[in-house]
């Protein structure tokens, strides 16, 4: 009996180790460090992100959240350590191979970073051009991506004609165009109001559930992290303070009426009109 239990344990350990070797992890940072001048932004951080998870990174301003995220597609070159995505070590790739790998790593930003002089359609299409996506299939691919984010009727508009939430949807469509394995999100909702934030988080959840894209999301907003992540890394002073598993709880949509704002401000207490 004990022998059998022992055997089972050994087998499960072997299987687990095997899985971890064979692409169970999608992103693996190994002892990564990054300094800006004298400031050590990231101090020898090791972190693994599993396939299919929505991984949050939270911390105070200056904790190194964005830097950590930007190390994952080598927008910041690490001073030390290794970055591995899908079994491919990015740190020792030639610049040409690195560009190739980046095409399968999507990224969205706080300020959307759309090309203001390109239409919605062109903004999405450009990422296909960069990846030499077959010309004939480009149009239908762009439309599929825009439909996914609910903006299929916005093709001819320019970013200046869109709201913040719509811009971020276009950015998501652009990031999805080349069917990435992972989507890196750098404060994606930090310049949006609470309702739009909830909408964008909904879209990101769809990206994860329906398309099976792994998501890494950096935010300083606790609500955002709580609302969507399965696992969260808490960063402090360039080091991992803790990594916790959580149960995502959807953000409550907020009432947008002026009356609600007044109620929230006064906490329901009746005060005299100012």
């Amino acid at each position, binding site marked *: 009996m004990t022998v059998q239990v022992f055997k089972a344990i050994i087998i499960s350990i072997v299987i687990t180790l095997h899985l971890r070797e064979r692409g169970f992890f999608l992103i693996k940072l190994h002892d990564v460090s990054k300094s800006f001048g004298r400031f050590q932004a990231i101090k020898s951080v090791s972190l693994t992100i599993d396939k299919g998870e929505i991984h949050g990174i939270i911390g105070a301003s200056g904790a190194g959240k964005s830097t950590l995220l930007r190390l994952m597609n080598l927008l910041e070159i690490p001073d030390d350590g290794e970055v591995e995505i899908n079994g491919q070590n990015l740190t020792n790739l030639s610049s040409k191979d690195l*560009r190739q790998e980046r095409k399968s790593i999507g990224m969205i930003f706080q300020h959307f970073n759309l090309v203001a002089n390109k239409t919605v359609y062109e903004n999405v299409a450009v990422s296909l051009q960069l990846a030499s996506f077959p010309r004939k299939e480009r149009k239908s691919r762009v439309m599929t991506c825009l439909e996914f984010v609910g903006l299929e009727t916005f093709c001819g508009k320019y970013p200046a004609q869109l709201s913040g939430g719509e811009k971020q949807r276009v950015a998501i469509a652009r990031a999805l165009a080349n069917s990435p394995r992972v989507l890196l999100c750098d404060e994606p909702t930090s310049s949006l109001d609470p309702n739009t934030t909830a909408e964008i988080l909904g879209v990101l959840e769809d990206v994860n559930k329906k398309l099976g894209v792994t998501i890494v999301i950096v935010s300083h907003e606790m609500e955002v992290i709580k609302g969507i992540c399965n696992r969260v890394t808490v960063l402090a002073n360039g080091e991992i303070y803790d990594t916790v598993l959580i149960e995502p709880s959807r953000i409550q949509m907020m009432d947008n009426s002026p009356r609600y704002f007044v109620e929230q401000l006064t906490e329901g207490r009746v005060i005299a009109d100012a």
Partner: protein
Amino acid sequence: MPEILIQYEAEILSSIGETFIMVGVSILAAILLGLPVGTFLFLLRKGQVLENRFAFSALNLLVNIIRSFPFLLLVVFLIPFTRFVIGTAIGTAAATVPLAIIAIAHYSRLVEQALLDVPKGVMEAAISMGASVKEIIVKFLYVEARSGLVLGLTTSIISFISYSTIMGVVGGGGIGDFAIRYGYQQFKTDLMIYMIIIMVILVQLIQFTGTTVSRLIDKR
């Protein structure tokens, strides 16, 4: 039409032609060489994709030196070089050499400025999508900076017209030279004033066109 204009019609037309040739070559030089030089001035800067402190300083210094010359001195200074390139230092063709050189230096600075207005985030998005340097320039930088590039070129063209008026010293001809030789030196003030009016109209037209085009292509 005033009699004096009819009297000098042939000379006026040929001097306008010379101005067009000199300014035309300057515009070509600005676009074909000033644009790339300005793009490198931008891309070699700290924090940009081709960051290279040494190359940036060298290019920056070269452009500054050319721009430091009072233009008349540059023309004289370049005479041996012009003779080497064109075979002569006199005439309209010879005049295009110093004009082309100042055009490159002039427009490259305005290109650099226009590119500096492109939000850093757009560059980052391009890099994160795996764009090569060439793709970053053509598909992102120039698209985003296009109205600034057009406005800069407009400013440059107007300067080129002004520079071209000096080229009389090396027999380059042009409207400015005609106004000086016939209007000023032969005391035909009315002729000089007519030439100034032609240049004012020309500059107005160029500025209007440039401003309109840059507004139409600006979707920011």
